[in-house]
Each structure stands twice: as structure tokens, then as C-alpha cells.
């Protein structure tokens, strides 16, 4: 093997974390300096992840299917390819895929950031996902609805921050703080979010991620929190007419199903998620939207 080339097995060993430090450094140098080397790393990384997903994946094979043509390829444009949004997502926990910061970064719905931009784009009820909000209800919401709503609002806070919309930020962060304060030990998390409201979009991402992590920990890393975070991102993306987010969420949906079926109180929603996943795999957006709405209603109450 030459100094400036890598072979398939070396690259594979690199991805499996089995190379010596010296060999690893050599591979990194090659990948950093050679565009083709980098492309190999990128492709192999995605392929490795693909081959490691569940056997129940329903991706349609392209080979031999003349009739499908481009339908499977039709992925909505990323929402609002906007200037100046350097979205480095931060999530200090292991389930990075359900980080509200990460999820919101994938759902960019406004072109020009600023106050009122979300309402202008999505309508004045953009932040009303399907349950009624009344003052003082922070203490009355039971589990797992509380965890679910916290996940929803954590994502809403990030969406509002990403859109630079402090008008939208205030009510969703206020509801989040109220929900958090209704939990033992939640006062600190509530305070973090009040701080975020005070500083607005200039709040460092690391602090936003820590706040979201604090709320998630408050809910004992509940799958309901993650469900809330994901469904809200999906709901807002669909409201903005961007179905790419949901189309690419197969793995996340399957993870949620796995975690919810393990809970006695999760079976009904898991069943709806399975239907949603089937609709997603079959490109049935109307059905998918319907199941999403039903999941929100079922989980938030």
C-alpha cells in the first residue's frame, strides 16, 4: 500500500475504529488532501450507516424498476436556502438525531430572518400544533404529555431562534418554561430558557444545546420528548411545504417506534407511527400528514 493511497479494507478499518493512531493519521491526511479520497470516505460512511439500519427498511430498489422513473428521487428542496445561517447543530447527548437544535437546523422555513418571519411564512397559528394552551396548566399536564410538549416546544424555540424571530420565540419559550417549572427540579431548566429569550438569536448554540439537554434530562430522556421534538420539526416542515425532512426521516421514525413499543403507554402511538412510516415509504404525503396530526393529538393529551 503506497503512502498516499488507501485501499478498501484500510478505509473500512478506519470507519470501524480499528486502525492504529499512526495509520489513522495517515488516512486522515490522504482524505483531507485528496478530493477523491474524501469522496470515498463520504460514500463509505453513508453506505456503512445504510447497511447497518434495520432490515425493515422499505427503500425501493432502483435496479430493474423502469416504471418508477424519478418519483423516488423527488425530494423537496431544503427549506429556505438562506444566507448567513451558519447552523452548527449542537447536542451533547447520545441521541443526536433527536436534538431539537439538530432537528430545527434541518427545517429552515424562512428566507429572510427577522421578527414575524415565521408567522409571515407559516401563518399566525404556526406554533399551535393541536392542543390548547391555558395559563397555569404547567402543573396539570400529566406524563407523558408533558415530555411530549416539552419536546415540541424545545424544537419551536430552535426554529424561532433559527428564523431570528423573537416575536415567535417569546410565547413558545414561555410555555416551555412553564411546563418545565411544573416538574420537580425544573426551575433551573426554566431559568435557562428565560435566559435564552432575553438574549434571543445571539445565544450561543452550545448554551441552547445545554438548555435542551437539561429539559430532556428532566424527562429522564423520555422517548416522548424525542417524539415531540421530531413531530414538531416534521409538522413545521410540512406546513412550509417542505417534505424533504420527513422523506429522509425513516431511521428516526423506526427508532421512535422501537422505543415506544417497549413502553406500555406507547403502543397506540407506536401503531400510528408505523402507519406514518408506511405512508412515508410509499410517498403518501396526505396520509402521512393525517397520521402526524393524530400522533400529536394522542401524545399531547
Amino acid at each position, binding site marked *: 500500500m503506497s503512502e498516499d493511497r488507501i485501499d478498501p479494507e484500510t478505509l473500512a478499518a478506519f470507519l470501524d475504529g480499528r486502525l492504529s493512531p499512526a495509520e489513522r493519521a495517515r488516512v486522515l491526511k490522504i482524505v*483531507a488532501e485528496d478530493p477523491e479520497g474524501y469522496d470515498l470516505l463520504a460514500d463509505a460512511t453513508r453506505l456503512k450507516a445504510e447497511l447497518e439500519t434495520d432490515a425493515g427498511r422499505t427503500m425501493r430498489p*432502483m435496479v430493474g424498476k423502469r416504471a418508477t422513473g424519478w418519483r423516488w428521487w423527488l425530494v423537496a428542496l431544503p427549506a429556505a436556502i438562506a444566507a448567513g445561517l451558519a447552523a452548527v447543530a449542537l447536542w451533547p447527548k447520545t441521541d443526536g438525531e433527536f436534538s431539537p437544535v439538530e432537528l430545527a437546523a434541518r427545517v429552515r422555513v424562512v428566507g429572510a430572518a427577522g421578527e414575524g418571519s415565521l408567522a409571515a411564512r407559516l401563518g399566525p397559528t404556526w406554533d399551535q400544533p393541536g392542543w390548547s394552551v391555558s395559563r397555569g396548566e404547567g402543573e396539570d399536564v400529566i406524563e407523558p404529555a408533558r415530555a411530549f410538549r416539552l419536546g415540541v416546544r424545545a424544537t419551536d424555540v430552535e426554529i424561532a431562534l433559527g428564523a431570528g424571530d423573537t416575536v415567535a420565540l417569546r410565547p413558545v419559550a414561555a410555555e416551555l418554561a412553564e411546563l418545565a417549572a411544573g416538574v420537580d427540579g425544573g426551575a433551573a431548566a426554566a431559568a435557562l430558557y428565560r435566559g435564552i429569550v432575553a438574549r434571543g438569536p445571539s445565544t450561543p448554540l452550545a448554551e441552547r444545546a445545554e438548555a435542551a439537554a437539561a429539559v430532556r434530562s428532566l424527562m429522564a430522556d423520555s422517548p416522548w420528548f424525542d417524539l415531540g421534538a421530531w413531530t414538531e420539526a416534521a409538522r413545521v416542515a410540512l406546513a412550509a411545504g417542505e417534505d424533504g425532512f420527513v422523506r429522509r426521516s425513516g431511521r428516526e421514525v423506526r427508532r421512535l417506534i422501537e422505543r415506544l413499543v417497549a413502553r406500555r403507554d406507547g403502543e397506540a402511538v407506536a401503531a400510528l407511527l408505523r402507519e406514518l412510516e408506511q405512508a412515508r415509504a410509499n410517498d403518501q404525503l396526505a396520509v402521512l400528514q393525517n397520521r402526524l396530526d393524530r400522533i400529536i393529538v394522542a401524545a399531547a393529551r
Partner: protein
Amino acid sequence: MTSTLSSESSNPESIFLASLPAIDRAVAFIAHRHALADSDAEEFSAWVRAKLIEDGYRVFREFRGQSSLSTYLASVVAFLFRDYRNSRWGRWRPSAIAKRLGPIGIRFETLVYRDGHSAREAAELLKIAGAAEPEIRLIAKRIPPRTITREVSFDAAAEGTPATGGADDGVTALEAGREAARAAELIRAALGELPPEDQVIVRMRFWDDFSVADIARALGLEQKRLYRRLEAIQASLGAALIARGVTQGRVAELLSRDGTE
């Protein structure tokens, strides 16, 4: 898949046969990721199988067990795609912007800048394939102008100024191309000052849309620390670009995950 790929079997043919579902899945995934037309995807699939069978299943005979078989197959298919693409289309690569626009963006750019179709012809071909006209129009505006012989992997990553009038607007495209080339050079210079691992992290994150979790897994890094590291890298890259005379607003554009206006 892991249960059917027994590392105990020393018969390369048996391993190949047991691996076929995974191989087919990998091939389909690569074809989708690189927006191959159906005919090209079919041809690639057949080509991969032939290569894996070649020389008495040499690919499997030479497997040393330094990685899992699954990861090895992923790597092998990635290498085979590189070889196939180079043999078919030379050094052509889709731009980072086209990749971020998805399969339709890749396909449009490929039709126009690799295969030589006019933008109108490319649009018609995409419509026939089922793409919606509003999407095609939007994509056509955002794909940056380029020449067919241009090496693109890192140059294209910094092409943040698509031609405003679409691919057929000659004067605007020329100016946009020059601006993109300047931006590419600046990015390349700034990036080259980072350590190799940081360079790879930047590319994966900002131009290839990997999540932080995916990057951490691929490079064997601790996810929690990677967030802070990304912030530090971004600050460092931004400072390097400003030192080269780039305005702060332009830095934000170049370092945005889309890198487009």
C-alpha cells in the same frame, strides 16, 4: 445482515452469495445518492457484480478481517463506484451546491454541464422524468455556472454565487464564475491551514450535510466534544477568511451549510 454474513465461512463464493442482498442494497443506495439515471444504475449494478466475481472472487479472498465484513462491503462498493464513475465520466463531480439541492439538482447540473444539454433541454428531460416545473426553475437558478473540464470537489464547495439569470445568461454567469473561483481559492487556502482531521470535519459538516452524530461515528470522536470543536473550527476558519479580506457577511455565507444565497 450480520447474521447472514458468517465470518466463519472461508469460501469466497459463499460469502459473495450470502452478501448479495447487502450488495444490492449498497448499489441501490449509491445510485440514489449520486442520482444515476435508471439505465446507469442498472449498468452499475451489473458492473459491480462482475467486479466482485472477477478473478475467483478476489475481493472476498483478499479480505483480511481488519474490519467488519459489512463495513468492508460498504467501502468496496464506494471504491467500485469511484472506478465506474471515472471510467464513464472522467473526473466529473457534482458541485456541493447541486448535492445539497438533492437528486434533481445533481441531475440538472449533470445534464447541462457534463452531458452538454441546454438548460431548456435539461428541464424537459427532468419534467419527463416526473420533476415539477417550479422546482426545476428554482434549481436552475441556483446551480452555479461551471465548465465541463473543471475539477469540482472542493472548488464547487465554495461556489456560493449562482448565476441569477439561469444557466444561459452568459455575462452574469461569467462574473458569477469568477467570483466563485475567487471564493473557492480563499476557502481552499483557509482550509489548508487546518489540521487534516479538522479539514475533514469541515467538509463533512458544511458541504456534505453530515449530522454531528454521523461525523462523530465515522471519525470515532466523542460527540459532545465535537460540538465545541466545530464552533472553534468555524471561528478559526472565519478569522482566516477575514484576514484574507473577506467581509463578515460573505464569511457567514461561505460557512453556511448551504453556501448559497
